[in-house]
């Protein structure tokens, strides 16, 4: 099965609306990393009336806390973390124009609904496949919250990042569809 090539940040809505749960994709372009602590802080900033550390419109966030890079390497191992821990903060970010997320595991109903309303997409990557995925990361730049260490926000350039569409704009959930198909 061939993978659908996706360029990010997104430029047109049709690039998102054409995606269906279960599509295998290859993602190219620039994305941001953030996980638990960075999400908490971003939302605290918003509540305090401050701006986010980067323009979130049309962007994709990758839920990851990489291992430290070895000397000479661009990045350490960098597979997805469990997305549901970010659910509490996600609708706020989607309302501000975030268009894509990469992680692993289920999203809660609020997020699934917000993905639908905001015409966004949630991609699942293979958890634990961190050494392989790190080869798709070509450049890393610190953006904000450096004190959070592995949890800091970084801007990363990716080429041929393998993922699967889990939640699409129709409210479909590939994890649920897959289980239904194979459950005996």
């Amino acid at each position, binding site marked *: 099965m061939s993978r659908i090539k996706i360029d990010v940040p997104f430029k047109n809505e049709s690039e998102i609306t054409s995606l269906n749960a279960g599509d295998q994709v290859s993602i190219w372009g620039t994305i941001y990393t953030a996980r638990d602590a960075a999400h908490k802080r971003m939302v605290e900033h918003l509540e305090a009336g401050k701006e986010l550390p980067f323009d979130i419109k049309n962007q994709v966030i990758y839920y990851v806390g990489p*291992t430290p890079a070895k000397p000479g390497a661009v990045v350490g*191992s960098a597979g997805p973390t469990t997305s549901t821990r970010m659910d509490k903060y996600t609708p706020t970010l989607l309302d501000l124009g975030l268009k894509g997320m990469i992680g692993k595991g289920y999203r809660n109903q609020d997020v699934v609904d917000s993905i639908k309303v905001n015409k966004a997409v949630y991609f699942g990557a293979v*958890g634990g496949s961190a050494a392989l995925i790190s080869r798709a990361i070509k450049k890393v730049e610190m953006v904000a919250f450096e004190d959070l260490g592995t949890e800091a926000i970084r801007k990363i350039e990716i080429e041929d990042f393998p993922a699967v569409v889990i939640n699409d704009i129709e409210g479909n959930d590939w994890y649920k569809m897959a289980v239904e198909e194979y459950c005996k």
Partner: protein
Amino acid sequence: MKEVHYQDIVNSVASMCQDANYELGEDVMNAFKNAAKQEVSFMGKEVLNQLIENANIASSDRVPMCQDTGVSVFIVELGQDCHIVGGSLYDAINEGVRNGYEEGYLRYSIVDDPIHRKNTGDNTPSVVHIELVPGDDLVIHMSAKGGGAENMSRLQMLKPSDGLEGIKNFILETVQIAGPNACPPLVVGVGIGGNFEICAYLAKKSLFRPVGERSDQQHVAKLEEEIMNDVNKLGIGPQGMGGSTTALDVKVELAPTHIAALPVAVNLNCHASRHKKAIL
């Protein structure tokens, strides 16, 4: 009385931390390969092949197979005729973790306080269980336990009348709730009996057994196989992409319990089932 030196423990722990994270055990690799042959779903097969490739990259480049390099959990069998010289066993283990994680470019994943949540910056303290055993050896079992699967683990105090059926239902329900979050294919560790804390410990301890090895108690081995069969009918598949490989293995450990009790604990391990052993 045999003497084991502090520094030898430090060094041995440091290299175990690195090896566990870089080199997937042969037991798990073989289980991946068998599963890839048998998996019925196309995407499930793709995930398994990706995991095999990932493990190969990790061991050839000496980089962690997963970015969550885990809580370092130790089960130490301390021979009662073994004398540790030069410092405390706990300090030696933590120093080994500190060195291993720093020198090995492994991630620091421990916060000092569950409410304030400040990273300790060296992956300590580790979790150390010590069992006093006959003899004069010091045997250290190490595991790097990721957060994703640990978070989906559960314990329930069942009633004796719930019986085997209740036990099985609780295990299946746990795997089902975990779904893709725990990074299947899983190793499902089950503790049955004991009391509240013994039961949880048994489930954890069972995960230190090699994947593919059955219990030496016949009725437990049978139970492991039955549960494995049922789990693999759930359809979750590798990484939740659907399929027949939801678990690589199921491990069950039993302990005597109270006449009124039937505790069951399910400690899930993801496919990055990283464990090493050293004898000093």
